[in-house]
């Protein structure tokens, strides 16, 4: 067995985790920004967004666990969970530990939505933006392969993709001037107008894919 075997595994797992995190984040923002003229609003796309986040957690586990038997970095169990306790590039690994907690919160927030309610879930789910930034910072600072051209290109394009999608998502939505009078004409009662866009008794959009 190559003495660096576990080191190769953790590096590969880290890169795949980042790619999956980028895919899930970009897909989530695209769904909530209603990109793709309805294509992304399909339930299976929303399921894929959730599944990509879960898969990212799977590769994140490999990224973390194989550090323990690696003889070169000498990570201890505590180093994997307490930010700043690792001797190997302490700041960069601390950022990575925080990103791991962020990824856990972001992913499992899907499964507690029915208990905490839509509004709390939405705020909790916004932590994924911070998680992505931390993961990008961790990869750039701690990654052994960060100096490779293709890895630099991956980080740059992932950062630009998420940034541009976020800007689009949070840009004030231009609405046609005639929309409001039309809505008022169709639904003279404001409560009735609200019911037309939300399930009765809630402020939640009809499709969960649109609620991020």
């Amino acid at each position, binding site marked *: 067995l*190559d003495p*660096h*075997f576990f*080191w*190769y*595994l953790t*590096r*590969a*797992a880290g*890169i*795949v985790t980042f*790619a*999956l995190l980028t*895919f899930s984040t970009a897909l989530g923002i695209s769904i909530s920004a209603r990109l793709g003229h309805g294509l992304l609003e399909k*339930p*299976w796309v929303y*399921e*894929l967004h959730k*599944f*990509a986040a879960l*898969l990212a957690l799977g*590769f994140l586990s*490999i990224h973390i666990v194989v550090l323990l038997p690696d003889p070169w970095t000498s990570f201890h169990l505590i180093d994997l969970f307490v930010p700043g306790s690792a001797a190997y590039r302490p700041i960069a690994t601390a950022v990575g530990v925080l990103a791991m907690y962020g990824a856990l919160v972001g992913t499992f927030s899907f499964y507690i939505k029915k208990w905490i309610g839509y509004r709390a879930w939405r705020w909790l789910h916004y932590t994924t933006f911070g998680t992505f930034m931390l993961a990008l910072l961790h990869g750039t600072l701690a990654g*052994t*392969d960060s*100096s*490779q051209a293709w890895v630099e290109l991956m980080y740059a394009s992932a950062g630009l993709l998420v940034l541009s999608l976020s800007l689009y998502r949070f840009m004030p939505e231009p609405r046609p001037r005639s929309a409001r009078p039309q809505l008022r004409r169709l639904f003279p009662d404001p409560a009735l107008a609200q019911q037309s866009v939300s399930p009765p008794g809630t402020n939640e959009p009809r499709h969960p894919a649109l609620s991020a």
Partner: protein
Amino acid sequence: MNTRYATSKIMLTCASVLAFTGIATWVGINGPFGSSANAQVQSQQQSPVTQRVRIRDDDGQAYTITIPRNSPVARSRGS
């Protein structure tokens, strides 16, 4: 609809596993610290019992290692 759910998930899983094995193989052969990676000795300091060597790997990272002078590593390099 179930087929589409399953197909998209299987495709994403396969792509991730392929990428993982491909990248692990690549870094093992070509990447920094890979089997064909190089390091250059920058400086050496010797004491009666140890030898301190400063090396720079091909990813630009510099390390200082201390080797006991009577260790097999030191002997194999003729120190």
